[in-house]
């Protein structure tokens, strides 16, 4: 064991002792039982991105772990029945609430909530004879309630995927027609009466080129900016919600979005220039896009409403 590893291991041991001291209820755990969990958490969140992280960083990370929650989960994993009782008693409401959010009906929510406890405990058995449940994956970094919500949400997504693999129902063929109809009717460059077919085709091609360039430009944004664009435009979040996901204030998100608009426009212009577009052509194409999209916004919103309704029905 080299000096660095030894130093880190010492930090884990000392951190485990402090963690036990911080916990209101340590469930008769010892430092040794916590060290593997701490090691895994530090490796996952700190050492993976910075293998040479300073000891202070590691110590600080350990000291910010949720002592009570981590002790409870480790005790449950050790088979402590009292700890299990505590867990179910304290968090059954949280799990039910999360299940209701993830399911469209009460029955589905109840099934989901029940299956969560089974998932946590583990239906299979590991090599060491202990159940291979999800409890092993709680690091203590975030709150236990939040982690349980995340587990419920992931399980709901998995169940939804399994159900979606079933054959597409007959009635959805109608929905496909709605989508196709919407696409044909509401493509920005194709809306309205075509006075000049040649001009319309040209506009459609220009619009397609522009959208392609825009999609390419989005990929070239930084991860944070791309996430903001996805949250705001693709997921339909409000600015303050998108800001919350990014960990910034709504005003910051708004300013960032304005900057992203400018960057995207520059990038699109650059891409189109590489494809031989002149500056006036690009300007004109942008103006026409704005003109057509503004004119089309009403019918598009109406169709979007239908699509959303149908999507919700399917998800439910």
């Amino acid at each position, binding site marked *: 064991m080299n000096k660095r590893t030894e130093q880190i291991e010492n930090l884990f041991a000392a951190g485990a002792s402090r963690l036990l001291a911080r916990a209101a209820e340590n469930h008769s755990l010892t430092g040794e039982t916590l060290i593997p969990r701490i090691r895994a958490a530090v490796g996952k969140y700190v050492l993976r991105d910075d293998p040479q992280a300073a000891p202070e960083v590691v110590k600080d990370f350990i000291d910010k772990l949720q002592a009570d929650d981590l002790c409870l989960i480790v005790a449950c994993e050790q088979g402590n029945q009292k700890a299990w009782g505590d867990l179910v008693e304290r968090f059954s409401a949280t799990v039910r609430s999360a299940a209701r959010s993830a399911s469209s009906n009460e029955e589905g929510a109840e099934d989901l909530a029940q299956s969560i406890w089974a998932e946590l405990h583990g239906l299979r058995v590991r090599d060491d004879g202990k159940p291979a449940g999800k409890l092993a994956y709680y690091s203590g970094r975030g*709150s236990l309630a939040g982690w349980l919500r995340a587990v419920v*949400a992931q399980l709901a997504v998995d169940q939804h995927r399994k159900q979606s693999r079933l054959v*597409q129902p007959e009635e959805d063929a109608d*929905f496909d027609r709605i989508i196709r109809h*919407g696409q044909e009717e509401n493509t920005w460059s194709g809306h309205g009466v075509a006075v000049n077919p040649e001009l319309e085709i040209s506009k459609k091609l220009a619009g397609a080129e522009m959208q392609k360039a825009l999609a390419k430009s989005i990929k070239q944004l930084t*991860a944070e900016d791309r996430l903001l664009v*996805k949250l705001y*435009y693709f997921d339909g979040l409000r600015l303050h919600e998108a800001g919350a996901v990014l960990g910034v204030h709504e005003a910051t998100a708004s300013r960032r979005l304005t900057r992203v608009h400018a960057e995207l426009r520059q990038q699109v212009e650059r891409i189109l220039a590489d494809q031989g577009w002149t500056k006036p052509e690009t300007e004109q194409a942008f103006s026409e896009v704005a003109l057509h999209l503004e004119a089309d916004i009403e019918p598009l919103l109406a169709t979007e409403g239908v699509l959303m309704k149908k999507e919700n029905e399917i998800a439910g």
Partner: protein
Amino acid sequence: MKQANNNEVDLLLRSLARGRNESALQNRLGSGGGNQATPDHLDADELNSYAEGVVPAPARARYMEHLADCDACRGIVVSLTAAAGTATRSAASEQKGGVAFWQKLATLLSPAVLRYAVPALVLTAVIGISLAMWQQRRQHEFIAQNEPVGSSTSTRPSKQTESPTSPSTSETHSTIQKRGESPAATELFKEENNLQDDKTRVAQGAGSRTGEIASSALTAKDAGQPAELNDRLELRPGYAQEPKAAAPAPAASTLDEADKSNQVAKEQPAKREDQERQRDAYKNTPSDEHGPNRSAAPNTAGALSNRRLDGLSAGRGGPSGPEKKNKAGEKAGDVETRTVSGRRFAREGKLWVDTAYDSSRTPIKVARDSEQFRALVADEPELRAIADQLNGEVIVVWKNRAYRIQ
């Protein structure tokens, strides 16, 4: 132009998102899968840690990279963030107590804060003390100027006729410096200050006398007739030449300082009234104190001293009577206006109204905490600046539309 460009990109993005959502929906229906392009999804612990904002920065950047491309994980994070936000708010409202106070105190007294706070505090203290001392000096001058002009008649004849201008020390300094005659005059100041230290009987009126001496020295210098300092001290004039009507009663300079102070204190209220009357008179008198005949103009000295009195009284308690009246008149007559983001607003009660607003038009009502408002300011950030800077309701005309922000 820039805003229009942004709007075009905004519309394009909306269009792109709509098309993508539709195709994603079709894919979901057709193949039964969502966005499966990213195989290594974040686990529940990572998703929750991200949503609660407790992930170290490098790991957070990595997760953002994934979330930007993974619809499923992003969806979970969005729901977890909403739940975590609610939980945090309720926890924060519960935890307003001793621990938070001590934490705040500890933060306030942390070395990182003190490193900057201590020098700032010292600097503030130095500035404050300097200001206080300066004020005190000015106050002494003020007391001295109220000293009866004829008080020294027995020992020093008035030099009013010789040097009608009797500017204060600071004025004299500045005058000297402006004229570029500072070396000799500065020497005079130094000598005079040394002499002052020796003269124990001249205490309270020192500042004023210094100015008087300097001014007479300056006058003498102008005339090319330097005089002996002791003579000047004895022959120093009163503070300012004042009209007869406002002239104070004479007092003996040989009185001891306590008696003199008491006398001055008694005379001050009446004196101030006189000075205010003088100021009124001065305002009606055309002055040319900056002109070449400054020292020769008999009224100018009074005007200068009155100006200084104006400054002093303004420093002590705001404008004098007539000024107060004028300001009150302005307040009553004028409408409060402000200019924000290039637009001018007039206040009508609690309402700020854009001066470009035509009252015949019906404004679009927008509540500040509404989604409509957020969308509006997202598109027009300058409207946010206006709404932020003007409290209460605001009617603003923006791009040929009138909005009433409530």
